[in-house]
């Protein structure tokens, strides 16, 4: 399914397509880009996009964005995900960047934005805490003002790729006596500060994506406060809105379905009844993708006419994650007995994996994708949002 494009937009789409084909680094085409790349390798594409001026499609032109229309942003998103390129680090470009240019002061914009665009600074997100998952407003990490500094103490968790991070943006409690939402501030913390400790959390697929981050008497200059003290919840909600927009993942699901079809053809003879069973399952999930894509295009068209999409992001998140989980389950099933194998981490080409290469990451993807319905606001929370904001329940 395609948007009806003007000749100019169609030309833009072709330009994006050929730019990716000609410039996406071969060394980033590894079995599982999300776990197998070093920090430097995963920044290669970021730097290429930065040089081209395409690193931050959402950003206004004055801060370094390309100044694209909503349609062009969508085309870019569609082409890059269809091609299977590793997206630039979301915590930097999609999340903290817009908070800084929307709510930060001039000095903060000048200091941080260029380094986000260039990839010089790697950001991670200090939101969740052991006691604050879905209920983020109960964060307990404390920041106490002492002269020109805040003294920060607390424990952040599920911090994605904190092991690579130069900076962390944190929700901290600055007024313990206020109502939960009104005593929170948004603080930028240098990961090299004394008192910051990162501890890996290994997940069920064996990978190291997330971490605990401990903050012990960390001294943070007051100039690193975003906006006003105790107004952090407003900025946090703004950021979460951005986090949830791109979760339909149509391009990625389409790519994985195509791969699944190839695996089924290679693994299961067409006269085996399981072949028909898989065709049926694949058709059902393709229809799910089609319906979600049509919904996404409808919302994009509305946005282009200036209509607020409301909580459409919650719908995209729920369906996008459910669909992708289903595809990874089917792929894991399709490889039959070889689904028993799980790659050891850290991944190495020297370790033996049984069966054809197309199945080598099926188990880990299947396991890892369980997180999708949990993170970024669990799917239960997303349903609450729709119940409240759309249905008025």
């Amino acid at each position, binding site marked *: 399914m395609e948007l009806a494009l003007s000749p100019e937009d169609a030309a833009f789409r072709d330009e994006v397509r050929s730019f990716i084909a000609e410039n996406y680094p071969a060394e980033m085409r590894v079995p599982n880009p999300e776990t197998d790349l070093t920090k430097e390798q995963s920044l290669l594409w970021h730097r290429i996009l930065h040089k081209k001026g395409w690193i931050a499609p959402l950003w206004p032109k004055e801060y370094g964005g390309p100044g694209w229309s909503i349609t062009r942003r969508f085309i870019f998103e569609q082409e890059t995900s269809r091609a299977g390129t590793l997206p630039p680090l979301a915590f930097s470009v999609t999340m903290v960047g817009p908070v800084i240019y929307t709510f930060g002061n001039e000095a903060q914009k000048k200091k941080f934005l260029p380094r986000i665009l260039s990839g010089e600074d790697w950001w991670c997100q200090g939101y969740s805490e052991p006691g604050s998952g879905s209920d983020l407003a109960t964060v307990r990490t404390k920041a106490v003002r002492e002269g020109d500094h805040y003294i920060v103490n607390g424990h952040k*968790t599920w911090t994605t790729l904190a092991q690579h991070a130069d900076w962390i943006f944190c929700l901290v409690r600055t007024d313990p006596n206020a109502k939960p939402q009104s005593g929170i501030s948004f603080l930028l913390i240098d990961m090299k500060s004394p008192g910051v400790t990162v501890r890996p959390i290994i997940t069920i697929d064996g990978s190291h994506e997330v971490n605990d981050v401990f903050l012990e008497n960390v001294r943070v200059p007051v100039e690193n406060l975003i906006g006003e003290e105790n107004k952090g919840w407003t900025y946090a909600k703004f950021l979460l809105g951005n986090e949830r927009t791109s979760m339909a993942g149509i391009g990625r699901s389409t790519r994985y379905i195509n791969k699944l079809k190839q695996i089924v053809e290679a*693994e299961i003879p067409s006269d085996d009844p399981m072949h028909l069973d898989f065709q049926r399952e694949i058709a059902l999930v393709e229809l799910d993708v089609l319906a979600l894509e049509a919904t996404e295009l409808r919302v994009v068209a509305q946005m282009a006419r200036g209509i607020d999409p409301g909580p459409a992001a919650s719908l995209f998140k729920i369906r996008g994650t459910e669909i992708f989980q289903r595809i990874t389950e089917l792929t894991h*099933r399709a490889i039959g007995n070889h689904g*028993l*194998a799980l790659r050891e981490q850290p991944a190495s080409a020297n370790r033996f994996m049984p069966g054809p290469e197309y199945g080598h990451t099926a188990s880990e993807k299947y396991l890892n994708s369980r997180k999708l319905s949990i993170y970024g606001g669990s799917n*239960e929370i997303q349903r609450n949002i729709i119940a409240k904001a759309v249905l008025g329940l």
Partner: protein
Amino acid sequence: MDIQFTEEQELLRSSIQRLLRDQYDFEARRKIVADEQGFSRRQWAAFAELGLLAAPFAEDAGGLGGGPLSTMIIAHEFGRHLVVEPFVETVVLVGGLIERLGDAAQKQGFIPDILDGKKIWTLAWTEKGGRFDLADVTTTARREGDDYVLSGGKTAVIAAPWADYLVVSARTSGNRRDRGGVSLFVVDRRAAGVDLQSFKTIDGRRAAEINLRNVRGQLLGKEGEGVVALEACRDRAIGALCAEAVGAIGELNSATLEYSKTRKQFGTTIGSFQVLQHRMVDMFIAHQEALSLMQHLNLSISGGEAGLSRLASGAKTKIGYAAKFVADQAVQLHGGMGMTDELNVGHYFKRISSINIQFGDPAFHVLRYARLGAAA
């Protein structure tokens, strides 16, 4: 229908529970899995000591005569503790085959060492491209004097890296996928021409791709009747795997229920949210149904009832889907914690994922169930 366990069976169950509680808690298991070997000889000896490896065998074979119900009791407790040692492979699969097919010399030669925990065995029937079809065999065996010579390959054989002996299916006549012409052979895992490429499984066990090049093997059972023997073996395996799955489901449900009563968000326990209450009710129902089918199946195996094989496929389907549902929801309700290697919940999820592949996934077995029903 609810099985009233005999005093002997209750004793068996409580003695396993005691052993596993004392020696096989989650941390002990973690150490075993992380070990170079990936399983514990010491635990295996403890299982033998307690009579677990002898329990299902007939008394005249030196066993305790507990039959399939003792297997069910043991596998259920092993499922609760995520035991990695090859009980199903050595005792249920191979032990069952030798007991039924072996000649006197083979029984006397092999069974005592199984009961005593001295030798570990596994069954190598899966082949590349064969998926879950027992008759899809391209490995060949040709007669040479009193022995046979095997050549071919087997895929994803669980416990092969630990095994002293393998029982291998190979074709003595006919074409690929012919039901006739498949025979079973005992092969020394360290024999010349046996080549293993080992890997770790999704549930922390060890498996291997096996290449056989002119390997000597001795016939087990009658030539050409391997598929029939393997079908009955699969039924028994499903009885044990379903019991393991039900054990895992029960643990996931109690862990999830406990968590939902203690984990607080939005000023209250998450167990007070109706949407999660209903989810946990469905998990409870899934457990109840799975438990009932597990008993029904294992009683039928005990009685050697007609239609047993169809029932086995039915149970593998129903319990497989139930286990998958519970595992998905247990991870979901534990939130991020359910994703961690540190908590046991994810490990039950992985064990269930593995069980669902072994001897055919629920999608395979539901078709088999339908077809056997149509044929009846």
